[in-house]
């Protein structure tokens, strides 16, 4: 349980909620800039991919910070014994693998789809030739 007095914990809660509200506003401002609603000039003066990564990364980090604040202050995780917080928080590390693996998979699928589209662009004759060569090779083997 919290070692703080009533007044102390009250002021911690107030500070935390104000911080969370400010971060939310900052996130929305970043989203507005990222979509080109505010400062549309930025989209043209910078590499758009770099801009997306920078602003997206900023929003992800701010959201994770919000999550940490909610768990440790509002849910009082920082006042529990270390063993309890470890049993709850360590399993969440599995999600690091989950996010990386599945986003990797999704990106790979996007690549495969583009590959099929690109292959379809190739004229039919040259594709046929490729197939005939393949057939010959197979017959040779037999």
């Amino acid at each position, binding site marked *: 349980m919290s070692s703080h007095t*009533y007044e102390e914990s009250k002021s911690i809660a107030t500070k935390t909620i104000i911080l969370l509200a400010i971060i939310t506003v900052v996130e929305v401002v970043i989203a507005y800039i990222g*979509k080109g609603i505010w400062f549309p000039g930025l989209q043209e003066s910078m590499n758009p991919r770099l801009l997306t990564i920078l602003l997206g990364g900023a929003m992800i980090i701010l*959201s994770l910070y919000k999550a940490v604040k909610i768990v440790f202050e509002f849910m009082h995780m920082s006042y529990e014994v270390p063993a309890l917080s470890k049993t709850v928080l360590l399993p969440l590390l599995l*999600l690091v693998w989950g996010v990386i693996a599945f986003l990797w998979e999704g990106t790979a699928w996007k690549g495969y*789809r583009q590959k099929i589209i690109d292959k379809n662009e190739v004229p039919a004759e040259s594709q046929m030739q490729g197939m005939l060569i393949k057939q010959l090779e197979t017959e040779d083997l037999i």
Partner: protein
Amino acid sequence: MATDTLEHHDVAHAEGKPDWNGGNAPMKASYGKLMMWYFLLSDAFTFAGFLIAYGTLRVMMPTWPVPDFVFQLFPFMGHTSLPLMFVTLMTFILLFSSWTMVRAVQEGHRENQSGVAVWMFLTILGGAAFLGCQAWEWTTLIAKENMTVTTNPFGTHIESGVYIDNDGQETKEIFEAGEPYLIGVIGADHGDHGDDAHDDGGHGDAFVYTPHHDKPGDYTDALIDERGYIHKKYKVTEGEDAGMIKSQAFGPKAFGGLFFFITGFHGFHVLSGVLFLIIIFINVMSGLYVKRKNGYEMVEKMGLYWHFVDLVWVFVFLLFYLL
């Protein structure tokens, strides 16, 4: 064996001893609080599974509905474009209710019955307000913008072009690759708001189109499918396909299902949270927890659940609306 345990338990109760007879409580947390934490851990994995599925499907697609175009309406504001404003309001409502919940738990620790009741009541109001907002958001998407679980009318142009009119002539409506569009439905209320929509820099193009046709068919300016969705036709102006006439396609199909399922699952958590808050609020009012003399632990456990709902919203907000 089971009977032995039960008897032992009963004896302990009869002698007025606490439930736990094995020395100090593990990790200095009561059974209920510990189990709430582990329930929330499992629930976190459920939500993470859904959100990771969303991320995977999203990166798989060449385009994805643009959030500030999809979520730009606000109640009582007509078709004025206010990107993300309504969902920001929803976020603030949930944050506020999280803070009132913290206050209720703090008042509980010092056994202040009326304090707990007041702050819990405000938390219930916040939860109900959030649910009301979500109901409006869903109603807008379903009834006004015709999104379903399997049909996503929010598309994104992948090439520059110009819309054509009923005579096959080019109109003044030009667009560039990356601009979003909304596929309308015949017979729906689209035409009245054209002037409003033009003022906001083209973001309201969705509501400009007044259909000249009221039956499915392949017309010069639009292809209207069997369900009445109007796929406007345009002439490509750049790239390999320049000069070709194409009709607007639906956006990524997975969007509707993912949106309704994930925000619905979160909304269901909020709904059950509000119901449990009401039950515990009634118990607080009846003085049940005064007798328990454990610093309103039930309110504290409810608080853990309620903050978790807010925690999940942080990520739903990030993935569906901000990114």
